[in-house]
């Protein structure tokens, strides 16, 4: 993989700094940050009043209310915490297809999203998976950690079959805080794309899906007598590619995408589909914002 950092010029990184990842739900954070949390705390934004009880921090007493009402009333403020972001990057062999490869394209998107998350003091986890979790970057926080993220992404390699269910199950059964899961994949999962996403839903994560496809998959320019070899399992099939067969394939691919989109729509999951020859900056700056994934 080409050095990821070099692909982000200063101007682009500045633009990314103005963006932040949106989550449809509120999650409990660990550290103070810029993201509104479920609990009341020591933030700057006023949230509510309540009766003072012993042990409360009297620095939050509303002395003006006490003078008027002769009651000790405590001012409550919203707690601002960080957002756990889990960046699942499909590193199966099928992701190495296309030009540029889906894997490279996915890594660049993941890097950009990680940078946005780190800029907003979110806790960013990066997970590479195929038929199992192939690698995991421990939670990172703060913009200064972006190079670790880049390094991790750079060292990721493709290989193996896709099995999202096993991978997500393994990852989520460990004690994890709920957060925003971004799944970057081509979803060529022989066990079905639903099973993996079902696991994430089961653990109450907010899910955003980036479906990466290559142009060769969407509109293959195949013709004649071929032996098609599956890059993941080396299964081969003899096929005579005819216009009608190509049309059937395209219809099948369209049905496949529609199924994923329907699933996401049904469970209110964020979904964006892209092809690898779609400009990367445009995807991040426009499409994600239009899809209300970034603000």
């Amino acid at each position, binding site marked *: 993989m080409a050095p990821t950092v070099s692909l982000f010029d200063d101007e682009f990184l500045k633009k990314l700094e103005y963006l932040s990842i949106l989550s449809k739900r509120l999650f409990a954070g660990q550290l103070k940050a810029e993201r509104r949390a479920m609990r009341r705390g020591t933030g700057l934004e006023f949230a509510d009043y309540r009766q003072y009880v012993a042990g409360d921090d009297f620095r939050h007493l509303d002395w003006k209310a006490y003078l008027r009402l002769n009651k000790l009333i405590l001012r409550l403020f919203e707690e601002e915490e960080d957002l756990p972001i889990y960046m699942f990057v499909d590193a199966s062999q099928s992701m190495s297809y296309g030009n540029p490869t889906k894997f490279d394209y996915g890594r660049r998107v993941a890097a950009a999203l990680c940078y946005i998350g780190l800029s907003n003091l979110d806790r960013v986890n990066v997970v590479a998976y195929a038929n199992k979790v192939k690698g995991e970057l421990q939670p990172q926080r703060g913009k200064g950690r972006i190079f670790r993220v880049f390094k991790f992404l750079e060292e990721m390699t493709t290989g193996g079959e896709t099995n999202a269910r096993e991978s997500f199950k393994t990852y989520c059964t460990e004690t994890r805080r709920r957060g925003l899961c971004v799944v970057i994949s081509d979803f060529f999962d022989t066990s079905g794309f639903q099973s993996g996403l079902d696991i994430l839903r089961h653990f109450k994560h907010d899910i955003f899906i980036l479906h990466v496809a290559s142009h060769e998959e969407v509109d293959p320019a195949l013709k004649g007598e071929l*032996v*098609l070899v599956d890059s993941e399992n080396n299964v081969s099939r003899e096929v005579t590619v005819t216009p009608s067969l190509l049309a059937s394939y395209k219809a099948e691919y369209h049905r496949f995408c529609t199924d994923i989109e329907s699933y996401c729509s049904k469970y209110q999951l964020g979904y964006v589909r892209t092809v690898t020859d779609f400009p990367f900056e445009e995807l991040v700056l426009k499409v994600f914002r239009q899809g209300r994934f970034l603000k």
Partner: protein
Amino acid sequence: MRFLALTGIQAALLALITAGAIVGLYFLKLRHRRLVIASSMLWGRVLDERQAQSLWEKLRRLISILAAVVIGLLIALAVARPEIHWLTGGGERTLLVLDTSPSMLARTSDGSTRWERAVAAALRTVNASAPSSEFRVADTAGRIDAAPTTDRREIREAIERMKPVSGTPSFPEKDTETAHVRFITDGVVSLALPRGTVRESVFEEADNVAITAFEIRSTATSALAYEAYLEIHNYGSRDRETHLAISGAGGQHIERTLNLKAGGEFGGSFDLSKFEGGGIRATIQAGGDALSLDDTAFAYLPIDRTAKTLLVTNGSPYLEALLKLDPLVDLTIIKPGQYQPDPSFDAYIFDGFAPMSAPPRPALFVGEVPNTNWLPQSKGTLAKPRFATWAEDHPVMRYVSLHDVALERAVQIENMEAQVLAETSDHAPLILASPEQQRPRWVLMAFSLKNTDFPLHSGFPLFVDNALGWMSREALALRRQPGVISVPLAQAEVKRLNGDRLESYARGNLTMFEAAEPGLYIATHEETRQYVAVNLASPQYSNLNKTVSLKDAPAAVTAGWLQQELWFYMLAGAALLLVVEWLTYHRGITV
């Protein structure tokens, strides 16, 4: 079904090998190109669904291999030239004969000739026949009898080479392999046809006024007096006013208008005493004449001149008196001892003498001449021989009667090749002449004038004059009909009267040339010249309405459905299948 190029077993073997090779090659064909794709998950679904649903998917491979085998078999069997009788027709041999008699040149009502109609009919027959049908094309003149062939180009060329000529017509013999015989004719000439011959008529009634005879002949009164004999026939169905013109080389001419009734004729002699020697031409003009070939006739009028004659004798009063009285003879008399060969003389007369070598000019030998190596040898003496027969049609014996001619004695001649002009009842020759082609000519009398009363007979001066004429004077023209003409001169050069040279070729002692039209031709070899008058002059050909095939209709030609041999359609089918296979292969319809 049969195969023209191979036997049935060979064709079956070829088909088997071809089919086997194609099937083998089909399974040995290049492997499919391997292409790694991200995932075969979606392709698998599509293929499984299609294979489950489509019968075509299951049959596609089988159909592809079948198509390949069919293409291969079509090409292989095309090589064997198959023939299916009901599809391509015949395949048998047809003898196609065209009547090439001169009457076929008669013009018809549409402006074409009977011959052009016959050629068109022949070509129509050939074109409509089965592609594998063999044709042997022949004419009735015996000039063209092409070898049997299926090659349409050769057949057409043979037909186009034919042309009507005179001659003795004959129908070609039918060989055992000939299944059909077709004869295209106007029926004017009646020929014996093989059984089963289909006769196709190109006859159409036509008017014709024709010169049926034209010749120059000497009168009985003088060897150098000539007259022209002419016959004209009107073979049409209407009376015709016919203009006759006879013109000579010196500008003399005779003109006459004749009213010929339908079917009528004119015959008469014309005095040519005022004509200069040379070519004589007779022409007739009559309206609505269908055949021009018989409207003109030619003849040759010999040129008058005295013959410079040398008489070598020890004394012959009869001969000397006779020759001195002849105004056409410029006589010189010498003794045998004075004889020296001298080519300035036109003729020699040797009386009781013969030189040891042949004289340079024609010679008449009279009496008992000594044996030489160039004249027939004498082998004894005949006592009181009698003339039994003589050749009245020979120019030397014309008008000469030998009745009651008495002979006391004669030399018995051993004849080898000479012409016998008169002989005894025992076939002992008494008067001989050199062979017709031999030059210089000679005439030999096997008896001395002293031993006979022949000089006292009226035939004697005629005989001497005829002999001198035959040997040294210009001969009348040979009479021939248009076509291939033979002249009794070896390696002669043949020219027209206007000097144009004709192509000629030697055959033995003859010279052959082809004269398509009436005319006067001159054959020359060294100093010998022979005129040939070529005239149709034939009542047989000129009578255009006398036909034996009046009721014959154009015969239908039986042919199969197809106009080409089956191999042509097989190759076309193979090409078509190849195109379809190529298109379907590249569209992935077939594999």
